[in-house]
Each structure stands twice: as structure tokens, then as C-alpha cells.
């Protein structure tokens, strides 16, 4: 009886839950991307030692310019603050839900995209300088 029930349970859960199709699992759309400090500093790890000094100088310039823009957007140069902003944004999206409305994905994704765009603009602006 127990084995029979377990087998039925497995079959039914597979049938019913496999029919659930999540919207999109692309990492670029994930909320955690907005909490992630820019990945450009990670490039330093794969540069040869000879290029490191030049890269450090370039990254310092990039960081300075990026920090100015990020500060303008978030009010703080600290990447942790961006994470806190995501948290605050999630709360504000939840509060903005009207009765009967479900899901805050679009609201938070919009915030994340704007943040990403700001980061890209800041990067483009700083790298275009001599």
C-alpha cells in the first residue's frame, strides 16, 4: 500500500509540476544581477603580471568614474548599498501591488535593467577617456 501510494505520488507530482513553465531562467534577468558589483574588476585576475600595473591604473580611473555615477544613482559609492537598494526595491514593489495582482518580477526587473544600463554607461564613459 505504502509503496503503491509513493509510486502514485511521484507520478502525479512529476505530471503536475513538470507542467509548470517558469517565465525565464536567464541570469541576465535575475534580480541578483542588480546586487552584483561590476564584474570588470575580476578581469585583473586573468591578466599577465606585466600588464597588471597598467591595468591597475586604468581600473583606478574606471572605478573613480564609475563610483561617481553610481554615487549619483544610489547616493553611495559602496556596492553593498546597491544590494540594500535591491532589497528596498523588492519591498516597495510588494507594497505597490494592488489587490488581486500577483508577482513583482517586472517591477524589480525594470529596476535591475536601469541599474545595469547605468553601469554600462558609466563604463563606456570612463573607458572613452584617454
Amino acid at each position, binding site marked *: 500500500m505504502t509503496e503503491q501510494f509513493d509510486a502514485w505520488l511521484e507520478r502525479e507530482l512529476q505530471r503536475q509540476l513538470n507542467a509548470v513553465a517558469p517565465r525565464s531562467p536567464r541570469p541576465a534577468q535575475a534580480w*541578483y544581477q542588480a*546586487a*552584483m558589483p561590476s564584474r570588470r574588476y575580476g578581469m585583473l585576475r586573468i591578466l599577465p603580471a606585466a600588464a597588471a600595473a597598467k591595468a591597475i591604473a586604468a581600473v583606478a580611473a574606471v572605478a573613480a568614474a564609475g563610483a561617481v555615477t553610481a554615487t549619483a544613482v544610489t547616493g553611495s559609492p559602496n556596492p553593498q548599498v546597491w544590494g540594500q537598494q535591491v532589497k528596498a526595491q*523588492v519591498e516597495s514593489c510588494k507594497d505597490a501591488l494592488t489587490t488581486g495582482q500577483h508577482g513583482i518580477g517586472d517591477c524589480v526587473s525594470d529596476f535591475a535593467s536601469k541599474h545595469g544600463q547605468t553601469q554600462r554607461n558609466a563604463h563606456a564613459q570612463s573607458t572613452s577617456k584617454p
Partner: protein
Amino acid sequence: MGASYSEASPAGEASYRPGSSPDFDRLYRASYPRLVRTLTALLRDGAAAEDCVQEAFVRAFKAWPRYRPDAPAEAWLHRIALNVAASHRRYQRLREIGEVLRRIGRPELERDPATVVERSDLLDALRRLPPRQASAIVLRHYHGYTNREIAAALGVPERTVASRLAAARERLLQELGPAWNPEMGTPPGPGVIHSA
């Protein structure tokens, strides 16, 4: 950064280095749909399940450098996601109570059908279980986790997992009645006349 854990979990063979962003992206791609399905079973609301999973990944990403690869990464994610879902259920209950108080005497609003999962006796019964029991059932019978992996995911001893599974199974059998097994025959529907 410690040694990476080689998984032989239902998610497939994979190893993840704590703190590595590309590995976290890979983990996200591999686990996201499975986590959404787990929370959909518990919350019965696809959109809420996706929101909770996204929030769980935000929390997991912050903790990623400190992740200890001594258990499957997906089990670790499940633990975080189940905590987020539990908070969501509490928050939802408060909202519902407030809503009932505000809406007394007014007609009920219809829910968006796109966000509500197909009605099912099994999922309804699952949702009526205590969340810890329901989580154990989904991890065991949908994801195929071993009791050891469930113990890691829920942060409890293996014997606790075994007793939760037994209690959940017992309660599901009671809730579903004989209808779960077609061979045992389903109870007659309304309007059927039986001869004496």
C-alpha cells in the same frame, strides 16, 4: 574558497566554486526551474513562487562566498528558498486578513487565472500540510532527494526527515481518501442512483 562539491544530485553532475560568479550563474540556470516548481507546489501561485525564488537567489548570492560545499548546492538553495516561501506565506496571511477586513460587504475580486496553478486535489492537500512536511514530500517524491540530502536542505537530522515524511504520507492518505488509487474505485459522484 574551499574544495568544490561534486554533485550527483537529481540536477545532474556539476561542481561549483563558492564565490565564483560564473559558477553562480550556472547554478542559477540549473536550479531555477526546479526551485520554482518546488515553491509552486507549496504556494499554489506561479508568480509568487518565481518572486520567492528570485529573492532566494539574491540572498544566496550575498552568501555565495561563504557557501560551504559539503552538501549539494541545490539543497542549500532549497533551504534558502523554503525560508523565503515561509516568510511569504506569513506575509500573505497578514495581507489576506487585512484584505478581508477591508472588503467586508464588497464583492470578491477575481484572481488573475494566468498566475494560479491548475486545480488539483493532490496540490491542495499538499498545501494544507504543515510547510515542513510538504517540503519534505516535494524534495523526496518530486526531486528524488535522499533523506540525507533533504536533511542537508532543511537543516535537520535524517531521522526528523523520516518522521516528517511518514507523518505527511499518513495525512495525505487521509486527505485524499480512496480517490488516489483508481484500482480501489472512486466514490460515486452526486446524482448516481444505486439499486438496493
